[in-house]
């Protein structure tokens, strides 16, 4: 065992164990972070990464095991102690107050004079930002900032508190490719300025380019720690899956079906958001049978509303919506379900399931008139349960039983439930909105396989995604949306990732 007085170690975890009821989140985890190092933790959802980080950040103490910082044993009972020891966590979901300014957010909870000197603090923040390349206007309100800028505020927040050890929890999950590049530069600056970083990510490419060392976590246990140069992406992926063969990992999109009839045609569709402001601006779109059309765009540029218009949830203000040759006029959700539209919503937990009802009951959503659930004329709980059991088997939905509340399932199992339900009707058109966001490798591969299989059988699919790897993997044709307008469309073969990334951020490409 290494000595805890190794001067190069800024952080050491020894035998950290943390159990939650019914689950061992971390099992005797050993972990070290060297001075000036980027150490990546790789693992599927639920592998115990967040639990481990939360203990370092002082949100809760470990059941067993010790934490050493600069060789000194520490006990954190609250986050402030962790901050005082120079640890700063940048959460995946921003912890910012939207209608306060950058400065107000940064100094919140830090010791200040009774009379706040904003001019001085603004200056401090500007200097700090320049030092690391974290450029933001201190007096702007958070709601006026882009996602990338908000993340810079989060990083500034921990640096302002004097953090030397930074934990970045999936920092690029919400960023465009360009914003991610900028972040990589900032990370490099921080390393130069003697900070050490624990980096959490799913994206193999950036893991391989950024990390010094990589630790693979699986089911709460450390499987291996590698020096970057001694390993490669395939090997890591295999280990991450628990040494299984990576056979299910790779999917490839079969060629588009040749009988390509036009399934969906939109011309100049306009629609408003919930507050009544225009969010879709003359959108054109065409999807054919046996074709996956990928719609790329940064979240909040109208994709969500477009999906709602297509599925009948949101009314369109103007434009023409033609579906299988029929011009639709203010279709309702039930109309669209009857016409064979399946919809995997972006926010699966909020829209896709009724969390406190059983899995069996959740199979009735969007399908509640189906006679297969009924006896003579009333709901037959045995038939419902029976059906759910079959589907759970078929789609590998893991739960104690079909009577389990849907809300307690993991993200992957929820998504499989939704997919099982939507695809079990007579489908003609599927909208899949961010279908793999936040899912682990297994669930991702499974869901992509089902969608590709359906496509090869002639289904038309609209795939809405921010993940460019997924976009290129799945799509036959790519559209890009920005500011509620379609800013480009091209067959996949003619597209390249940089160009799409630029178009997503509103840069016009000739």
């Amino acid at each position, binding site marked *: 065992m290494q000595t805890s007085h190794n001067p190069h170690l800024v952080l050491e975890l020894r035998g950290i164990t943390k159990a939650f*009821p*019914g689950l061992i989140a971390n099992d005797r985890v050993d972990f070290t972070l060297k001075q000036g190092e980027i150490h990546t933790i790789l693992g599927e959802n639920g592998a115990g990464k967040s639990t481990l980080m939360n203990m370092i950040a002082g949100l809760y*103490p470990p059941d067993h095991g010790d934490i050493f910082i600069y060789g000194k044993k520490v*006990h954190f009972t609250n986050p402030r102690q962790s901050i005082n020891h120079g640890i700063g966590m940048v959460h995946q979901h921003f912890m910012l107050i939207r209608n306060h300014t950058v400065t107000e957010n940064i100094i919140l909870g830090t010791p200040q004079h009774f009379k706040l000197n904003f001019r001085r603090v603004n200056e401090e923040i500007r200097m700090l930002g320049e030092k690391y390349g974290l450029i933001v206007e201190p007096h702007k309100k958070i709601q006026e900032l882009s996602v990338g800028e908000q993340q810079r505020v989060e990083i500034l927040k921990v640096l302002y508190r004097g953090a030397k050890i930074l934990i970045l929890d999936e920092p690029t999950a919400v960023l465009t490719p360009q914003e991610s590049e900028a972040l990589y530069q900032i990370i490099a600056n921080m390393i130069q300025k003697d900070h050490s970083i624990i980096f959490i990510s799913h994206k193999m490419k950036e893991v391989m380019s950024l990390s010094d060392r990589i630790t693979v976590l699986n089911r709460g246990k450390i499987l291996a720690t590698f020096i970057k140069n001694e390993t490669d992406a395939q090997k890591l992926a295999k280990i991450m899956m628990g040494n299984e063969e990576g056979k299910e990992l790779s999917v490839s999109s079969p060629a588009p079906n040749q009988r390509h009839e036009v399934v969906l045609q939109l011309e100049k569709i306009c629609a408003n958001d919930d507050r009544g402001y225009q969010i879709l601006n003359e959108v054109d779109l065409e999807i054919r049978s046996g074709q996956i059309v990928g719609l790329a765009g940064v979240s909040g540029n109208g994709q969500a509303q477009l999906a709602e218009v297509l*599925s*009948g*949830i949101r009314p369109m203000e103007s434009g023409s919506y033609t579906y299988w040759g029929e011009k639709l006029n203010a279709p*309702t*959700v*039930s109309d*669209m*379900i009857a016409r064979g539209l399946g*919809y995997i*919503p972006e*926010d699966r937990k*909020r*829209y*896709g*399931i*009724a*969390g*406190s*009802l059983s899995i069996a*009951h959740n199979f*009735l*959503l*969007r399908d*509640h*008139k189906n006679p297969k659930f009924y006896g003579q004329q*009333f*709901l037959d*709980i045995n038939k419902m349960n029976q059906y759910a059991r079959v589907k759970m088997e078929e789609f590998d939905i893991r739960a104690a039983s079909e009577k389990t*509340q849907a809300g*307690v399932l993991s993200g992957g199992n929820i998504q499989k439930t939704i997919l099982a339900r939507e695809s079990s009707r007579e489908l003609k058109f599927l909208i899949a909105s961010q279908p793999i966001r936040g899912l682990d490798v297994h669930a991702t591969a499974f869901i992509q396989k089902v969608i590709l299989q359906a496509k090869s059988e002639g289904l038309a699919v609209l795939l809405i995604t921010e993940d460019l790897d997924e976009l290129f993997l799945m799509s036959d044709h790519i559209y890009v949306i920005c500011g509620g307008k379609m800013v480009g469309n091209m067959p996949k073969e003619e597209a390249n990732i940089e160009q799409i990334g630029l178009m997503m951020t509103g840069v016009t490409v000739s």
Partner: protein
Amino acid sequence: MIYLTLEKRLHFSPVTRISVSLIAIAVAILVGGIFLFAVGVNPFHAYGLVIEQIFMDYWGWQDLLVKIIPFLLTGIAVALAAQMKLWNIGAEGQLYLGAVAATWVALNWGNELSIWMMIPIMILSAMVSGACWAFIPGFLKAQFGVNEIITTLLLNYVAISWVDYLLYGPWRDPGSNNFPVTREFPDSAQLPAFGNTSIHFGLIIGLMVIFLVYFILEKTEVGFKVKVIGDNIYAAKYSGFNIKWITLAIVMISGALAGIAGMAEVAGVHYRLKQNFSINYGYTGIIVAWLGRNHPIAIIFTAFFLAVVFVSGELMQLEFSLPIAMIYLFEGIILFSVLGSEIFTEYKIKIKNVVT
């Protein structure tokens, strides 16, 4: 250092729920005893009296089975709406309006129609009347999102004032020596009772309504929709349910059920409309529903329990000349301990010993 922590339960079993409710009731009885002691009544003597004179007594049981009737109906009315996360605080007013409609039918048609016609018409008119009263908050909620807690609550005062107006004005019985009561209902407008008891037919109606609601919730498409809307309104939108219509319909049905409670009281107990014929039966329905966690079958038991509380309270009034406020106090304690115990259905307490 030893400290207590709350841990989330992984499994929600009905046994846990029932035992937590029972413990909450036990706590309420204990705290109620302290209050009895504070007003100078020996709680052991008082509770002993309850057992002796209510549970071990023919008349006591008869009182219980009469008192349970309005609680069954107002309880299920509140619970049905609560299944959709709609809080019908207005069962009291709907109950009054149901009684008004039944009374109008009884006083105007009672001498011409037989009991076989009268009772169904009175029930129906009470339902329509309660439903119409609930239409106001239901419509405002469905169309404009107006908070139904406030509208239903405030309409209670309007409904009660209406009844006062009728009783002091056009409907007052000329032979009542200026008491604010109507004429007695003719025989054809009185709910029949079982044998020689005072337990009237409303008991059957109440139980039938409860089983009907249970069946609708569990076995029909609309019941499924109600449960989905109550759990997750976004999932309901995504599934294309007509949330406005269902909201309006459920609030109105809830009002109709409370209306039946009013009809049963005037036609089964008092045989006339009079002031304060409802001793907060509508509000008590909220406690009945809560205590039964809005489950129709559980409501039968919680309604019985509240009937015990009321009959015991009347006994205390007679024996120790305690005011009726004692009943309300007791109700308050129950509600308080039930709400307070809610957390234990989802969490359990763990004692932790952390070495620092």
